[in-house]
């Protein structure tokens, strides 16, 4: 098993390096094609009163006066050494910005993932178990509607309901505006809505998948056998049917990273959550290329890692892949 795993991981990594090179090259080509002058963008209104000499100096400092190929090689060289340049909108090194914000994104996203998994399993199993009942119709109907509804719209409705009408929870941010220190309870209270919305928005496909695959599994002979042996219905569903129905879903989960990133960008922005995903929007609004490029690269790495994780999970979980090497 370890050999098959190692071979696949090596194969994937061999593809990752050229992939990242292509992605970074593409980003630089797009930046080159951009009609915007980053120096003017950076200065904003001050561009009118800034002397050409100062602007030329900034250009030189950023290395913009050199050929684009040279800029790319320099950027790549710095990247390898862990230097991602300075964020032009936040006026700090990109590494510092990401380092400060990544933790908040990981916290929110991992909580959302756990919540989504637990809720989809329970609700999906419930829908499959009571197939074609009103409960099933309500669940699948909501799931389809959720799939079609934009997550930022759901987030706004949730804010209106829980923060404005009921006033149970804060509408956004990380802490209370008046807070001077980071209190765990305060952060937790601010986390509930964004995490719940992110989990809800990502849950449809998994819930429908669990339902569908459980319905198929419930027809199988071994489930019939378990029932015939007089096992409790809950034991049949949880211990026998669900276990075998879940196998392929782990690979699907890893392949859903792009959707998770998209969801995080929108949810973090609506709830003013200070993570890396909402930073990409701020960087884009300010045409802050160094930060935006670094965040795009980070997201690409997350997608590649997700795919690798999914494939390894499959190799570990399915003895057929392990033994025969088929995938």
């Amino acid at each position: 098993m370890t050999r098959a795993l190692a071979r696949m991981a090596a194969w994937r990594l061999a593809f990752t390096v050229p992939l990242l090179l292509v992605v970074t090259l593409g980003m630089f080509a797009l930046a080159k094609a951009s009609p915007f002058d980053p120096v003017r963008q950076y200065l904003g209104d001050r561009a009118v009163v800034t002397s050409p000499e100062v602007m030329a100096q900034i250009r030189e400092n950023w290395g913009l006066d050199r050929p684009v190929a040279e800029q790319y090689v320099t950027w790549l060289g710095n990247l390898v050494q862990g230097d991602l340049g300075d964020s032009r909108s936040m006026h700090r090194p990109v590494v510092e910005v990401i380092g400060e914000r990544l933790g908040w994104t990981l916290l929110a996203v991992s909580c959302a993932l756990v919540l989504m998994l637990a809720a989809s399993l329970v609700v999906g199993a419930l829908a499959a178990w009571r197939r074609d009942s009103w409960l099933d119709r309500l669940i699948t109907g909501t799931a389809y509607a959720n799939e079609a509804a934009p997550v930022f719209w759901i987030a706004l409705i949730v804010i209106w309901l829980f923060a404005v009408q009921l006033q149970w929870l804060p509408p956004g941010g990380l802490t209370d505006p008046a807070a001077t220190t980071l209190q765990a309870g305060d952060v937790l209270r601010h986390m509930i809505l964004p995490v719940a919305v992110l989990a809800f928005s990502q849950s449809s496909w998994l819930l429908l998948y669990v339902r569908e695959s459980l319905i198929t599994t419930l027809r199988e002979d071994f489930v019939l056998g378990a029932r015939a042996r007089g096992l409790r219905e809950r034991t049949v569903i949880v211990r026998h049917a669900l276990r075998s129905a879940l196998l392929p879903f782990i690979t699907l989960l890893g392949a859903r990273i792009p959707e998770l990133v998209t969801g995080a960008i929108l949810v973090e922005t609506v709830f003013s959550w200070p993570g890396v995903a909402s930073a990409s929007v701020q960087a884009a609004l300010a045409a802050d290329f160094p930060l935006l490029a670094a965040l795009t690269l980070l997201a690409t790495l997350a997608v590649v890692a997700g795919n690798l994780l999914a494939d390894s999970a499959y190799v570990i979980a399915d003895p057929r892949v392990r033994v025969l090497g088929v995938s």
Partner: protein
Amino acid sequence: MTATHPTARRAAPESARRPSRWIAAGVLVALALAVLVVPAVVQLDQQLVDLRAANQAPSPAHLFGTDEVGRDVLLRVIYGLRVSLLIGLVAALVSITIGTVAGLAAGTLGGAADRVIMRVVDGFNSVPHLLFGIFIVALFSPSATAVIASVGLTHWTTAARIVRSEVLTLRGRPFVDAAISGGSSRLRIVRRHFLPHLIPHIALASVLMVPHAIWHETALSFLGLGLPPHLASLGNMINDGARSLLAGNWWASLFPGLFILLPTLAISVLVQYWRDRANPRWRSELQL
């Protein structure tokens, strides 16, 4: 095969037994009529600012209420749907065209060309689409063209995959061998033999792409990276509405969102029905 056999039960799709497809078709027709007829018939200006009527809750005079500068939300939703629909259609067309050409080239040429094209597809798929779209819009000015380009450039990969896999199965069919022995050129085989077979697949992919493209337009506009703020698009309207949401004005963002949800849901119900009927095999291939 008896009627109770599992595969036999699967053959009758759930959607065929429900009336939802009629409701879905009705919703689509109603929305299309609203988008086409209302701007031609109603003599009201959707840009009309009336500060005395600002932030009014839904009432008989303004069914969907008014926004923060007193514009009628219902009227603006219809105009917004028109803009979003138009951009969604063009963006879907762009991405399907690029995807079809790329898929045809990969499937027909094979070999190194196929490998290169499919690696490019992998590359595009490994950057989250919305982030890629944000990247493109950020470097070019936020405009309809930038939004169309960002959706078109990120979403062609799905169509390319579908077209390529179909071409690969078509390549082995006897009539293609016959055409080759008959002296047909590669281009002629593509035009006369591949394309006609691909049309149903391309059509289905296009229909599914439209709601997706609308979603992207609204998401970009909502983030302030899409259409210019004065243009009524559904995303801009939700963004505008979000500003007065904390004051309790739910209608200015609720209704525009509902008009994204309705056509998307209607199209997915119809596509599901059609797919179940036409070809159960497609179910897994076309998940967007």
